[in-house]
């Protein structure tokens, strides 16, 4: 997904780290990774450790980190948009206008990454970066622990109990699409994008699924 960006910028002190939030394990991510023919890091995160550390709620989200290891843009949507919510569910296609807008938004995001790497543009000052961080609540902290235990239980022959913990996790942290969708996917492959997913997306109403980055 990021290969052309990486190829273009790798000689300018730039690295891409793509992390698969994939509780089923590496074999589920592998076909996509091989297809991508990427030369940047492709990591597998079966426990969603990155989501825990960076307080992430969906994929794709990205964090920009500078040469000193400092966060210069907090977690935000990485190149996706809500146009998919208007797609024709029978044909699974978006209108040509929506497709064009989606592509333009993605292009604008990639241009912003490019500008950051070459000129430093879009890196937020510390106070602005701090203000834009999502807060971890005690409920979110508990949800992470339940999710962690749920993944372990599933891997160790206690699928039913694991499901229960993952559903409890999702209930404690309803804003996390990653928790809900991963729990659904472990329950049944494809369920994460099935009718229950669409119902949950519709219930958002005016709220975004992919909040646009504030570039």
């Amino acid at each position, binding site marked *: *997904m*990021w290969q052309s*960006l990486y190829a273009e910028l790798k000689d300018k*002190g*730039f*690295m*891409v*780290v*793509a*992390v*698969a*939030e*994939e509780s*089923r394990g*590496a074999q589920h*991510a592998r*076909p996509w990774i091989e297809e991508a023919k990427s030369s940047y890091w*492709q*990591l*597998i*995160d079966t426990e969603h*450790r*990155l*989501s*825990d*550390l*960076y*307080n992430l709620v*969906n*994929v794709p*989200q990205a*964090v*920009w*980190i500078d*040469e*000193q*290891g400092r*966060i210069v843009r*907090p977690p935000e949507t*990485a190149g996706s948009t809500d146009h998919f919510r208007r797609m024709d569910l029978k044909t699974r296609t978006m209108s040509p206008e929506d497709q064009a807008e989606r592509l333009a938004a993605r292009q604008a995001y990639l241009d912003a*990454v490019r500008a*950051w790497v070459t000129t430093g543009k879009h890196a937020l000052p510390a106070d602005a*970066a*701090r203000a834009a*961080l999502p807060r*971890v609540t*005690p409920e979110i*902290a*508990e949800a*992470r*622990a*339940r999710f962690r*235990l749920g993944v*372990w*239980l599933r891997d160790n022959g*206690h699928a039913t*109990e694991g499901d229960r*913990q993952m559903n409890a996790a999702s209930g404690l942290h309803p804003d996390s699409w*990653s928790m809900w969708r*991963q729990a659904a996917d472990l329950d049944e492959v494809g369920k994460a994008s099935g009718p229950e997913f669409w119902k949950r997306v519709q219930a958002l109403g005016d709220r975004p699924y992919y909040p646009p980055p504030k570039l």
Partner: protein
Amino acid sequence: MTVVLTPTAEYKVSTRDGLWMSAADAEKVTGWALKPEGMCRDERCVPLPASAVKGGDVDVEAFWQRLGGPVIASRDGDAWALGAPADERNAALEGLQAPDFTLPDVDSKPRTLSELRGKKVFLATWASW
């Protein structure tokens, strides 16, 4: 043996009555050492209630809750998860130093974020689901 899951690791330790374990195991699992002042890590000590220490053993569940972290047990009590306290996560993020991590790549080779110091890093998630 009981499995204890922390945010970054998995331990097998001998426990009794919930999450009581030897001070040595408690230190291995939590990174905090039992001292007369309480449980200590680096310069910081967290006092423990008298009811959470007995004969060189520590009630890790009570200690972890004292830290403000969630403690979740499996139904049979043979697996426990100790979650990071919300305050600890917020403080780390507000410092703006990118939390370090080590994760395997698709060929199981471990990769650590801080190895990339000196480069601009675009850290992005994705999933197959």
